[in-house]
C-alpha cells in the first residue's frame, strides 16, 4: 500500500507544480527558473515513464490500427529476409472484436469476476481488520499469518492451489472424502471452476485490503468513538457512523486499485484453470494473451484488445471519481 502512494505522489508531482503556477501570475521563463529544482527532481521519473509507458502505449495504439502479425512484420534473421507487408486498416480490429460474440461473453464474466472478487476482498478485509484492530493476545502473530498469502508470489500460490484442487488427487477432495462427502470437480466443471478461481483470488487479495483498512482504522481519531460512547451509541451505530465514513478516503482508493488489479488478474486465471474448462473462466486479459501468444502471434489483434481493456478501465476510473466527487469526496 505505502509504496503505491509514494509512487503516486512522485508521478503526480509535476501536475501539482503546474497547477500552482497560474496563481503566481508570472511569465514562463521565471517559473522555470524559480522551480528548476522541482523540475530536475521529477525529470528522471518523467523520462522513465515516457520510455517505459509512453512509447509502448503509442506503439500499441498504432499497431492496433494495422493488420500486423508475426508473419508480416519485416525482419532479417541470418539468411532469411522477410519484407514488411502489414498495412493500416483503421478501426477494423476494434469492430471485429466488439461485434464478436466472444467479446460480450468474456466481458460479462470479467465484470462478474471483478465485482465479486473486490466485494469479497473488501468485506473480508474489513472484517479481519476490525478484529485485529482491538487488543488481542498474539495480535502480531495473527497479522503476520494473514499477510502471508500476499508475501508469496501469486504464480506460486496459483500453482499450489491448482494441485490442492485437483479433482482426483487433490488435498481438498481427499479431506472431503475422508469425512464421507463426495469430492467436487473444483476445476473441471464450468461453475465450480469459476468458484475456484474467485476463491483463490480472494485468498490472494484479502491481505492487501486488510492491511490498507487497518491503516485507515488507526487513522480514525479515538475522540470520535469516546464522544459516541458518551452519547450512548451502540457498537453498530459506531461502526455505521464513525468507522465506515472514517475509512472512506482509504476505501475509495483501495477499491479502485483492487478493481483494476482484479480486472487484469492474469496469473490466477491462467495458472489455475488456463481459462477452462471450455473457455468458461477466461477473462479479457487471458483471452488477449492467447491472441498474442498462440501460434503465429497476432500483434494487431492483441494490441486492439489491450487498448480496449485500457479504455474500459479508464472509463471506469473516471466514472468512479465523478461518483465520489458528487458525494463530496475531495479526491
Amino acid at each position, binding site marked *: 500500500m505505502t509504496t503505491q502512494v509514494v509512487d*503516486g505522489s512522485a508521478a503526480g508531482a509535476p501536475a501539482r507544480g503546474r497547477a500552482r503556477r497560474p496563481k503566481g501570475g508570472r511569465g514562463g521563463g521565471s517559473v522555470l527558473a524559480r522551480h528548476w529544482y522541482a523540475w530536475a527532481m521529477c525529470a528522471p521519473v518523467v523520462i522513465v*515513464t515516457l520510455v517505459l509507458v509512453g512509447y509502448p*502505449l503509442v506503439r500499441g495504439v498504432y499497431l492496433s490500427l494495422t493488420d500486423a502479425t508475426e508473419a508480416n512484420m*519485416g525482419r532479417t534473421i541470418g539468411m532469411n*529476409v522477410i519484407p514488411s507487408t502489414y498495412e493500416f486498416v483503421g478501426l477494423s480490429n476494434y469492430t471485429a472484436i466488439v461485434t464478436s460474440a466472444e467479446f460480450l461473453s468474456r466481458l460479462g464474466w470479467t465484470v462478474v469476476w471483478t465485482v465479486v472478487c473486490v466485494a469479497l476482498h473488501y468485506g473480508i478485509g474489513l472484517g479481519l481488520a476490525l478484529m485485529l484492530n482491538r487488543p488481542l493476545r498474539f495480535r502480531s502473530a495473527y497479522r503476520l499469518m494473514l499477510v502471508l498469502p500476499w508475501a508469496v508470489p501469486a504464480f506460486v500460490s496459483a500453482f499450489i492451489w491448482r494441485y490442492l484442487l485437483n479433482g482426483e488427487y487433490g488435498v481438498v477432495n481427499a479431506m472431503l472424502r475422508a469425512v464421507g462427502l463426495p469430492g467436487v470437480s473444483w476445476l473441471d466443471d464450468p461453475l465450480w471452476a469459476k468458484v475456484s478461481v474467485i476463491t483463490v483470488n480472494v485468498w490472494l487479495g484479502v491481505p492487501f485490503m486488510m492491511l490498507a483498512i487497518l491503516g485507515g482504522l488507526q487513522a480514525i481519531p479515538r475522540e470520535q468513538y469516546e464522544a459516541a460512547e458518551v452519547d450512548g451509541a451502540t457498537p453498530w451505530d459506531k461502526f455505521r457512523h464513525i468507522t465506515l465514513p472514517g475509512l472512506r478516503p482509504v476505501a475509495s482508493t483501495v477499491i479502485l486499485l483492487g478493481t483494476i488489479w482484479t480486472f487484469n488478474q492474469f496469473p490466477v486465471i491462467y495458472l489455475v484453470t488456463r481459462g477452462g474448462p471450455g473457455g468458461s473462466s477466461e477473462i479479457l486479459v487471458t483471452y488477449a494473451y492467447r491472441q498474442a501468444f*498462440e501460434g*503465429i502471434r497476432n*500483434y494487431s489483434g492483441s494490441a486492439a484488445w489491450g487498448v480496449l481493456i485500457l479504455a474500459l478501465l479508464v472509463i471506469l476510473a473516471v466514472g468512479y471519481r465523478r461518483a465520489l466527487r458528487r458525494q463530496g469526496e475531495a479526491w
Partner: protein
Amino acid sequence: MRRRISAVAAAAALALAVSACGGEDTATQPSAPAGSANAADVSGQVTWWDTSDATNEGPAFQELVKEFQAKYPKITVNYVNVPFADAQNKFKTAAQSGSGAPDVLRAEVGWVAEFASLGYLAPLDGTQALDAPEDFLPSPLGSGKYDGKTYAIPQVTDTLGLLYNKELLKKAGHDAPPKTFEELKQVALDVKSKAGAEGLALNVDAYFLLPFIYGEGGDLLDVNTKKITVASPQSVAGVKVVEDLIKSGAAPKPAIQDSYTNAETAFKEGKAAMIFNGPWSNTSNLDGKAFKDDPDNFGIAPVPAGSAKAGSPTGGHDYAVYAGSKNLDASYLFVKFMASAETQAKVAGKLGLLPARPSAYDLPEAKANDMVARWKEPMAAAVERPWIPEGGQLFQPLLEGYQQMATGENAAEPVLQNVAKAYQGLLKGWSL
C-alpha cells in the same frame, strides 16, 4: 492524483501486453549458407535447447553431447534443457528479437512449418546437417519440410498406441487388447464390472482425439483441397465415439485440468486398465505401481480401429537450426551427429524412443531395448499430420470443444461446428 496511479497502472498493464512486439529491421542482403566446410576445422560454440524430460531423458542426451565433443574437440556444446511446454514461445520470442536464441533447437514436428514460415530456421538442403536423406521414414522427414525446402532433421518419431494393463484385462475375461472401438468399449465396461478398476483413462487433449477422428475416416483438414474437414460426418462420428465412451461409463469422467497427469497416474497405479499414450511414457509407466515389479504386465497395442481404419497421429521431434546462429557450420555438424543412425539407435536403446531412420532399427543398440520392437506395430498406423504454419493453432479450439464435451456442456456435433468456425478464422482461403 490517485487517478493518475490508475492510469499508470492500466497503461503499464497494456504496455506489458503490447511491448512484446519488436521493431522492424531494415532488410540487408543475406549471405548464402556455407555449404560444406571441412568438418575437422570447424570450431565454435553451439547452444542446444533440448526439450526432453529433464530427469528421465535429459541425461541420455547429455551423454551424447559429450560423445560429440570428444569427436569434435574444437566445438563446445552448451546444453540447455528447456521445459517442453515453454519452449515454443520462448524460442519464438528469442528468435524474433535476435538475442538469446539457441543455435540448435529440438522442435516438435508440429512447430517446424510455423517457425520456417516466419523465417526463424536455416534451410538445411545442401548442408552437412542433411545427411543420408533417403534413410528417413517419410512422415517424419515430411514434418521438417516447408515450401519445398528442408528446415529440420528428424530426431525421433512417435505415435499414440493403446497401452493396457494385461492383468486387469485378463481379470475382465479378455486375453487380447481391443481391436475396434466397439471392442474397446466392451473391454472397458467388462474391466469396470469384473476387475474392480476403471476401463479407459481419457486425457482431455485435442491431440488425443485424433485416433478416434482418423479411425472413422475423418481429419482436421484436407491440405490438398484446402478444405476444413473437422466438422465432416466422419470426424463427428469419431468424436461421438469418445462422447459415448464417457456417457456409458467405459471411460470415467476425465479431469480437465492436469488431464494428462491424472490419466497417466490412474493407469500407472493400476486404477485404470487402458490409456492412449505414446512411447515417451514408457519409462514413466514402467516406474508405476502397476508395472514396476512386473514389466510384462505392460501391454502395447495399436490404437483400435473405427469403421474406416486404425490411425494415430505422427508425432516426434526434429533438430532445427536457428537462422540467426553465429555458428552455422558447427550447428550443422552437431545436427548431423545427433540425427545419425548410430545416435538414434543409442537414444532408442536407452530411452525406448523410436528412431526416425529405418536403418537405426537394425543396429544392436536399438535392438537391445524391446520397447522399440514392441512399438513397431502401433507405428504402422501412424497418419501424417498437416504440416502447415497454422498447425500449432489448430489444437486450442478443439481442446476447448473437447472440454465442453467432457463436462457435458455441449454435444459432439455442435462442438465440432464451432471448431470449424474457429478454423475458418485462422485459415484464410480455406473452404468448409
